[in-house]
């Protein structure tokens, strides 16, 4: 392929212009929350050193946001988080390559299909014989997002959600949907279901919710791969959100931030205790309603998906920070504790609520803080 000299020059000029444009339009999302970070290093002395985490992609935005404000308060501390997926993160953690792991699910206690040791045992070995703790510090609500012109609120029960996503209910003005949406003018429109085509913790948690809250309507075993056969699979949450956005009558499950960014309608969920709108608080309450599933400072939670408690938004993806209770490299210990303490502050959680995460309630944060202080 011959490219003439003048074209080359032209190309260079174009590339240069683009590069400059890229610099100019770079938006500094960190600066808006900068003031929050400045005042929050309560421990006084700024921390230093480097800390590496790896794991869940669902946490990526949250950790990025927190790292941005954290490093403003502690300019000498370098915290990096590599969002490679929960499984990969846990593997790197147990292999000793990273200091903490982010995961969509707590460390598994059973060895699984082919593995000889369970994740818990592998983590214990990594921590020099001490337990690893699961700290639920980042929680992301999953929104049931829809695209209906002129319809502001739609209430759905778990059974309806299960039936819609499995193709039993196919139009928006189905009598079953109308029954729980009195006074809403639902159009005679075909429902187009969108799901995640890639394997994802979002899918797994959404299916867990359906299996927990509507067991008679959803019988598949929750897994990372969507179980249904109707509708279209799109890549990642952004693909699902884009699909719903461009298809009138579309519905899909996405992380809340994706629904917000695309201005999609978000269904209110009625588990039996009244319709609940998705907000950072209502989603956070799901963590409060959850039962502790671990011992002592291991704060693994068992979400009560069928909860009828008023004001609790039940479809929540809880993600954990997994750290060694003891056995962390002494040089890194202050930074591990400092960073997690920062993450477990109510102020930080409020910031996270602003970018589409649930606000982890104070009761859970207090337990987490106790656990973090006990890390040695």
């Amino acid at each position, binding site marked *: *392929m011959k490219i003439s000299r003048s074209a080359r020059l*032209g*190309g260079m000029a174009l590339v240069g212009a683009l590069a400059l444009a890229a610099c100019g339009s770079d938006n500094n999302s960190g600066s808006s929350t900068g003031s929050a970070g400045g005042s929050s290093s309560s421990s006084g002395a700024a921390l230093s050193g480097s800390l590496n985490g790896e794991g869940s*992609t669902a946490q990526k935005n949250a950790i990025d946001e927190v790292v941005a404000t954290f490093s403003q308060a502690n300019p000498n501390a370098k915290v990096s988080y590599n969002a490679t*997926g929960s499984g990969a993160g846990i593997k790197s953690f147990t292999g000793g390559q990273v200091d903490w792991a982010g995961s969509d699910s707590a460390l598994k206690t059973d060895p699984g299909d082919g593995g000889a040791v369970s994740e818990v045992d592998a983590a214990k070995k990594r921590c020099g014989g001490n337990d690893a703790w699961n700290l639920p510090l980042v929680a992301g609500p999953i929104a049931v997002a829809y695209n209906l012109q002129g319809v502001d609120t739609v209430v759905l029960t778990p059974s309806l959600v299960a039936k819609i996503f499995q193709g039993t209910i196919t139009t928006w003005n189905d009598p079953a949907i109308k029954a729980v949406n009195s006074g809403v003018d639902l159009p005679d429109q075909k429902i187009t279901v969108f799901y995640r085509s890639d394997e994802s913790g979002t899918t797994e948690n959404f299916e867990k919710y359906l299996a927990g809250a509507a067991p008679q309507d959803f019988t598949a075993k929750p897994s990372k791969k969507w179980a249904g056969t109707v509708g*279209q699979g799109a*890549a990642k949450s952004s693909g699902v959100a884009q699909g719903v956005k461009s*298809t009138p009558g579309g519905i899909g499950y996405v992380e809340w931030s994706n629904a917000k960014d695309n201005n999609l309608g978000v269904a209110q969920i009625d588990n039996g205790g009244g319709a609940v709108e998705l907000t950072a608080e209502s989603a956070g309450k799901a963590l409060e309603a959850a039962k502790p599933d671990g011992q002592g400072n291991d704060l693994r939670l068992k979400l009560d998906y069928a909860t009828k408690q008023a004001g609790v938004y039940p479809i929540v993806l809880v993600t954990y920070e997994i750290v060694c209770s003891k056995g962390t490299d002494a040089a890194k210990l202050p930074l591990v504790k400092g960073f997690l303490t920062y993450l477990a502050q109510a102020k930080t959680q409020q910031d996270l609520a602003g970018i589409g995460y649930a606000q982890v309630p104070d009761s859970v944060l207090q337990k987490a803080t106790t656990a973090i202080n006990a890390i040695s």
Partner: protein
Amino acid sequence: MSSITGRSELDSQPSGDLAGSTRRLGDRVFAGLSVGSGVFVVVVIAAVAVFLIAQAWPSLRDDSVDFLTSRTWNPGGSPPAFGVADLLWVTVISSVVAMAIAVPISIGVALFLTQYAPPRLARPFAAAVDLLAAVPSIVYGLFGAYIVLDYLSSIQTGISTVLGWVPLFSGDNIIPNSIFAGSVILSVMILPIVTALSREVFAQTPAAHKEAALALGATRWEVIRTAVLPYGRPGVISASMLGLGRALGETIAVLLIINVVRGTFHWTIFTGGETFASRIARDAGEFDTPEKTGAYIAAGLVLFVLTFVVNAAARVVIERRKAFTE
């Protein structure tokens, strides 16, 4: 570029003058370097093949369904069950449709650039086409997913209303994020490759051939038909195969554009699907056991073999046509 222009006399005697020359240091070093490069390529290909087979074999052995004809994909289950029939179909049909769109246009562009356009226009125009080749595929993917799709869905509906009786164009399960939409973007991606190579070949048409045609009273179109096209045919085929190779392996644009559709199988290109590359890329973040990884590598192996076969076929075609030389 023997693969493009057919074969020249020089190609058939590559080592003639090296054999008899005095062995100076420079000669030996350069000969060593070039032999090394040649061997290196072969070794790399062989290493890739060995790696794929070694990693895929244990999973293939445990596969509980027929790997080539099954449509299920559950490599993490016990027992694992995975087959590539769907992937093979979508990969091949999306690339073939892309070729059907891109190759005629590419030939048109190449003929325009070499036979019709004044040189002053041809050069910047050619550079613009080349520039298309340099755009990363993610950009094409975004362009396709966020802009082109809106316009394509009415075209799809149109085609399926008129030609719906052909299974390939049937309107069953029609969706905007279809295989066809992916093919359109793929065709834009392979356009510059096919155009650039075809242009080079057409430009090399011997003046004697063209002048002979003109002397016999041929019009411009007749010159192209009788002199330029026959001369360039092996080159165009070769270029098309290179383009096909890119289309078969294209990942990210396909991933972004084509949605997955499960359930009953439809022959239509207006429904969704997954190619080898897009499924591997889609799930790469969740390879948690070696068995599961092996299943995806096995799929990769099929793609490897597929591209190999395509290239081999192209080579056979070109060999047959090598009579068309000066």
